[in-house]
């Protein structure tokens, strides 16, 4: 199914502790579009992403997916989102392959797609280490494993927090092209990254516009 997704956020404001980080944040995202969320350290980018994918509750504002409130859709919505955060979400005890297989089983609805696992592994260049326990991977290899999940989940909306951390030059290239394909397949993407990367047709989004006080 090619997602005709329309993701719209209006008047969103979030706080950490007792401090409001940003307020009145709004944007729209259509099929095949992507945002590069930018801003100095500690501005609230991670907070924003977590709020958008429903991991933390914003103070106010409404987030809509295909026109309906995310809070009403609940699981319906999470079934459409793929999130990669600062943490990799890898099981050190399981092998690289097992990690992906479990992901496929738990996160992919309906009949699973084990075929994807193979292709995903190949795509992030971890075939060689497929049977090694994930805790033996190097920092960058771990990151790649986390990103491989994106290819398996096949979710229309990608939310990525610093995806390029610890990746070597080649992998950065690879990832950007992966995102590019996702977009041209009608997928949406929200990317936070301090690191430069070239991705045709991605819009910059300065978070600073919505924050009055700086930390």
């Amino acid at each position, binding site marked *: 199914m090619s997602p005709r997704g329309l993701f719209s956020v209006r008047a969103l404001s979030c706080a950490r502790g007792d401090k409001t980080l940003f307020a009145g944040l709004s944007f729209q995202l259509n099929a095949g579009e992507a945002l590069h969320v930018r801003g100095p350290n500690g501005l609230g980018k991670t907070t924003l992403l977590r709020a958008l*994918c*429903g*991991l*933390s*509750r914003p103070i106010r504002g409404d987030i809509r997916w295909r026109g309906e409130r995310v809070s009403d859709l609940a*699981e319906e919505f*999470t*079934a459409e*989102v*793929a*999130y990669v*955060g*600062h*943490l*990799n*979400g*890898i*099981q*050190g*005890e*399981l092998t690289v392959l*097992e990690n992906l297989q*479990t*992901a496929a*089983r*738990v*996160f992919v*609805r*309906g009949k*699973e797609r084990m075929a994807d696992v193979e292709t995903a592994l190949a795509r992030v260049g971890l075939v060689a280490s497929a049977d090694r*326990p994930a805790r033996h991977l190097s920092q960058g290899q771990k990151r790649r494993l986390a990103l491989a*999940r994106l290819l398996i989940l096949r979710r229309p909306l990608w939310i990525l927090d610093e995806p390029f951390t610890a990746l070597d030059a080649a992998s950065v290239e690879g990832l950007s092209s992966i995102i590019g394909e996702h977009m041209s397949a009608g997928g949406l993407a929200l990317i936070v990254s301090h690191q430069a990367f070239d991705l045709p047709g991605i819009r910059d989004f300065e978070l600073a516009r919505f924050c009055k006080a700086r930390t």
Partner: protein
Amino acid sequence: MSGGLFYAMRAVFMRDLLVFWRRSTEVMTSLVFFVMVTTLFPLAVGPERHELMLIAPGVLWVAALLATTLSLNHLFASDYQDGSLEQLLMSPYPLSALVAAKIAAHWVLTGLPLALLSPLLAVQLALPTKAMGTLVLSLLLGTPILSLIGAVPAALTLGVRGGGVLVSLLVLPLYTPVLIFGAEAVAAAAGQGFASVAHLSLLGAFLALTLSFAPWASSAALRVSLD
């Protein structure tokens, strides 16, 4: 669809079994802890068989309870640290169901073996043979309750530093009924009282209750802790 749910639950269950199994020690240690507590007691109290027999049911049950309490930290903690929990929250299935699967895995790896091993230790503590059946049965009924109730504090204390000890502080009061019913059942069977059936059926009822609310409560707790 619901087939898909069951499928996912099984996947989570299998995954946890596998992970814990790889942490080779994990399974054994909770058991060994159980063994040690029960063996420490004769050392501390002194070897008089009569005294021992009096306290045997109590010691066995307290040991079981502490062993479970200790293992609770491993129910969610490592998944939380490496971020796979935050991924689990993003699954298309109702969280409580997946949590239930995790709890089941936890029980299979801690409560179950513990219940099966208990008769050996009961012998050490000079528990009359006629009470063995009741002991195992009471543990089979009781330990799942421990895992279920324990899941809630385990989820609540995630990310809270020093959570390890905090869990036990939160959970032990809630464990009281299980302890009392369990120990009483065994004591009764050991011939210090009436039929143990009453206590066992109470345990059963309690298990049914916790089964109904614990997974829901702990998934709610998870959402809060990850907020």
